[in-house]
């Protein structure tokens, strides 16, 4: 197989044209920014994790489906029946877990903010006294 970089059709030129159109229309405010911001928050960057608090609540209700061609409706009905019959047990457990998740997420964010403040203070101290190492005791917590 050849690895020739020569394309048969110059798709890169079409992509460049698309990018130029997007840049022009963005500058003109042609795009619905609310929706695009929502999409950006949900999907981009594609491989990034969603915010921790978005993952904290546990869902007990998921779509009920069946891959069976015959009797699929019956299977879905049975699943729904089972789900309802164990809800009294499952719901409090998931509520406890969700409360715990949110608590942990809150503390992680508090710790992140605290570390950020400490780092900023340490950098500020070092910037103000070039050549002098920061105090070993560190800056006082704000």
């Amino acid at each position, binding site marked *: 197989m*050849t690895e020739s970089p020569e*394309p048969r059709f110059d*798709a890169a030129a079409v992509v460049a*044209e*698309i990018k130029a159109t*997007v840049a022009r229309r963005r500058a003109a405010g042609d795009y619905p920014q609310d929706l695009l911001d929502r999409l950006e928050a949900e*999907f*981009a960057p*594609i491989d990034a994790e969603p915010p921790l608090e978005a993952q904290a609540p546990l869902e007990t209700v998921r779509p009920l489906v069946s891959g069976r061609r015959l009797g699929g409706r019956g299977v879905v009905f049975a699943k729904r029946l089972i789900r309802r019959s164990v809800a009294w047990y499952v719901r409090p457990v998931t509520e406890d877990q969700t409360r715990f998740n949110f608590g942990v997420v809150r503390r992680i964010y508090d710790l992140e903010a605290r570390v950020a403040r400490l780092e900023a203070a340490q950098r500020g101290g070092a910037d103000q006294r070039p050549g002098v190492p920061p105090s070993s005791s560190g800056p006082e917590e704000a």
Partner: protein
Amino acid sequence: MRLGFIVPRYGRDIVGGVETLVRDQAEHLAAAGHHVEVLTTCARSHYTWRNELPAGTRVIEGVTVHRFTVTRPRDHGLMANLHARMDAGFDLDAEGQRVWVENTGYSDDLLGAIAPAADRLDALLFAPYLFASTVFGVAVRPERSIVIPCLHDEVYARFGVIQDALRAPAGLMFNSPAEMRLAERLLGASLPEHQVVGCGFAEPSPAPSGEAWRSRHRGQGDLIAYAGRRERAKNFPLLASWVAAHSVAIAAARPVRLATVGSGPAEAPAFARELVLDLGVVSQEEKLEVMAASLAVGQLSLNESFSYAIAEGWLSGTPAIVHAGCAVTREHCQRGGGGVWVESAEEFSEAVSLFQNDAAIRARMAASGREYILDEYGWPAVLSRLLSAVERMVRR
């Protein structure tokens, strides 16, 4: 030549790129006069690994298929815990990695059949890289083994147990140059002998007719086609969202719908659901007709080692819209000229608008992609590369 494929699932109705690749290669090699056997499990689903097909040997389309029962059922609770750890960014230790692989259709009987198969066949070809049949199977007779990894840039590709399995065999066969470069990055100098072989294609006969499909499904308007597993790992919800962004917000006067074929629940974000036309699992002929009836094939997956969908789109006369972040599909479009790569909803929408407004450029891009796929991945070229690679990598 006498060849054996070892693959966790095998069958005409099993959806997936790897499964299609192995089935196609096995059947074309058999049709060319080679003796081909397949060692596989009785499972149809890579979620449940339930033994759904009968164990035993039968000949399917000239290929001798030996099915073995999965002997270690998937522990769903354990796998959920392992995935939760990985999703939170924690690494699995060596034991966790081994247990994870053991929960991917492990069959003692299949592993036990590998040594006798190695004795009666010239070479064993394992696919894909991350399942128990490959990871533990390669260790049985590595000198007679070749892996077709179908590698993705994902967490499993960094498991020590899996990288050991990729270093062990006599050779590796890749589907695309971009996949080969990924393996070179991951395994460095310890990569065994390797070559790009690829998936094979032929001109569809009869030529797929978009008009025929539209005459059976009237009033669908402009379509973007998606074919494959409808799951988050393939970025299906993102594709549905970008179709909705185009149709509801950016270009509401010229909306498009997403015509999807394949397995999985086709779940889309709430605001995109009405635009998803769920056709489910259809015949190969109908899939190509859906593509022929569409403006473009949308493929935003980042986890591709080849992408059958965009190649089949080109053979149906339809260009592709792929994600700029996927090295494999982007390279196909760059080299073949058969599609555009985008990285935002706005770029996706402009690409759709371009194809809506300019039929000539659509036709030229699709023709360019078709020429590329038949030149570089036509069956004669693929089988020739495969057989010469086997000869070179596995010498009796």
